[in-house]
């Protein structure tokens, strides 16, 4: 079973994602225009003992991976939790060229010919084969790096959840285990519903990552439901958006989250040495080192 650190480092700040301010998002995009600026911040976090980087499979993540591969000794304890897919890439493509051409564009190898040749057998296996090809395409850039947990991004997890395609959760779990010797993780904005669905799908003690914050921001089902299930359900839960994109003061936010019985880890993003240190110290203050 994968070991999950209590403190994980996130990547929204590097790629212009900010849920409260477009202007702040733009400033961050500018600041991290060069990958070296991202690596500098990653280095600061790593040197403070934060070893796990939870990262979207954004196009630029490849450059970071190249750097890590080129300096293996320096980053020997570095752990990636890839989160796939980077949805905008696909969504923009679907608007531009349609769904089928998008699949063709991104899947590694001639997936369309496989699909229509009928050689793969049943339709069920075709679609799973397609999903697995897309996973392989996303995982290419992490080749040779340590990726013990691979996450499905919330837009896909929650889409499958709404469509009630629960068996796909199991297939994702099965495939990343078989192909990458990794555990599956699921990011969601609907944790109560997701845990029920994963239980139905047969994924036991799942790794899940959800918004968990004092004001209930993007916690569908409500704060009380989350508190109850963290305490009572068997899962390895990672809290994201603990600061609710900056709506809460760091101390207040982190003390509240760390006080939740059953919470395993916190993932946070920060752009400066001072903010990384402050957040780490606040978590250490609650949970110990």
């Amino acid at each position: 079973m994968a070991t999950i650190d209590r403190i994980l480092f996130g990547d929204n700040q590097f790629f212009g994602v900010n849920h409260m301010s477009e202007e702040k998002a733009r400033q961050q995009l500018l600041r991290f225009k060069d990958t070296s600026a991202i690596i500098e911040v990653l280095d600061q976090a790593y040197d403070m003992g934060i070893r796990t980087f939870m990262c979207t499979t954004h196009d630029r993540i490849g450059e970071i991976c190249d750097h890590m591969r080129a300096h293996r000794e320096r980053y020997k304890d570095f752990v990636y939790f890839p989160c796939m897919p980077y949805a905008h890439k696909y969504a923009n493509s679907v608007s531009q060229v349609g769904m089928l051409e998008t699949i063709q564009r991104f899947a590694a190898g001639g997936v369309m010919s496989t699909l229509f040749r009928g050689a793969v057998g049943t339709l069920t296996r075709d679609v799973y084969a397609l999903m697995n090809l897309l996973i392989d395409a996303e995982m290419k850039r992490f080749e040779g790096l340590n990726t013990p947990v691979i996450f499905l991004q919330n837009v896909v997890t929650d889409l499958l959840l709404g469509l009630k395609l629960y068996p796909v959760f199991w297939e994702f779990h099965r495939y990343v285990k078989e192909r990458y010797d990794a555990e599956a993780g699921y990011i969601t904005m609907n944790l109560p519903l997701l845990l029920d669905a994963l239980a139905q799908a047969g994924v036991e003690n799942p790794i899940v990552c959800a918004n968990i914050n004092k004001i209930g921001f993007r916690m569908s089902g409500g704060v009380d439901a989350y508190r109850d299930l963290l305490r009572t359900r068997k899962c390895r839960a990672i809290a994201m958006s603990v600061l609710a994109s900056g709506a809460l003061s760091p101390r207040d936010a982190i003390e509240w989250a760390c006080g939740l019985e059953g919470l395993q880890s916190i993932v946070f993003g920060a752009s400066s040495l001072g903010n990384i240190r402050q957040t780490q110290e606040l978590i250490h203050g609650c949970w110990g080192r």
Partner: protein
Amino acid sequence: MGIRVGIVGAGKMGVSHFAIANALPDTAVVAVCDTSHYIVSVLKKYTGVQTFTGYQEMIDEARLDAVIVATPTSTHFACARYALERDIHVFVEKPLTLSPAESRALSDFAIQRRRVNQVGFHNRFIGTFQEAQRLVRAGVLGKILNVHGTAFGQVVVKEQGRTWRASKAEGGGCLHDYASHVIDLLNFLVGPPIRVQRANLRSIFSRDVEDAVSAVFAYAEDASGILETNWSDDSYRKMTTAVTIDGSAGKLIVDRQELKVHLREPRGFEDYVEGWNTRYITALQKPVGFYLRGEEYSAQLEAFTEAIRTGNMAHENSFASAYETDRVVDLILKANNVKG
């Protein structure tokens, strides 16, 4: 017995609506139709819903209470009309139709049949925009002088493909597909303009459609407005919509995430003070029961099913309000043809 929903069109929006509607309480998606046999067969295999390749067949056979229409705009009229004739509630993706006359006719027909009729202008369900509307309506900004609405994003940043979005006849192009969102949002905030004074539609990458739209509006009581949209702007990570409203007593700047209000003097309105006030989406957005890609997408379908349950015909985003948006779109097209 819950609400039985059918989805017309299993593209990006159709599948998104499918997931959200299916997760709503006492609501189930029971049928889907799409012209693509491959997509329909995949959905049938995995989701267990009834599938069809034509909407008439689906509406005739699937015993639906409501349909969600997410097909190219040129097909909205016939499909919505067919459903309304059979007393089925209708949610249609934006814009409602390509012709104000057709939109008007659909609106009148829906009212006559007393069926819930809603259009997917989802900005009206975003907390920051709702708060901006509340301030305008309460007169906090004083007399409205000028509005400025923009949307930028990177939908088309290369030569266009072959989807309906690249085809003018089907309702593609920045004006109908993108600018309509901002036009509707301005209508929501300050009401529709009385004239479009100038308009410019420009192609950047597309062959058959425009990629950027700008227009100058005249409002009642001498207020003016500017619309600027460009879906070929890759300096934006995703669609970014913003509105500035200048009033005699203050101004506001609002986007999806934050609302900034500057008041010239104290207005005595709740806790809004003189000078700058900032409110964030984290405080303004009402939670939804199921989140997929923004609260607004869930909130609009929650409102739709709630209106069906309560029989409330005075709901947000009715065909009548979408008609006003289509009317402004049409005025922009006409203003663009005027050389001068």
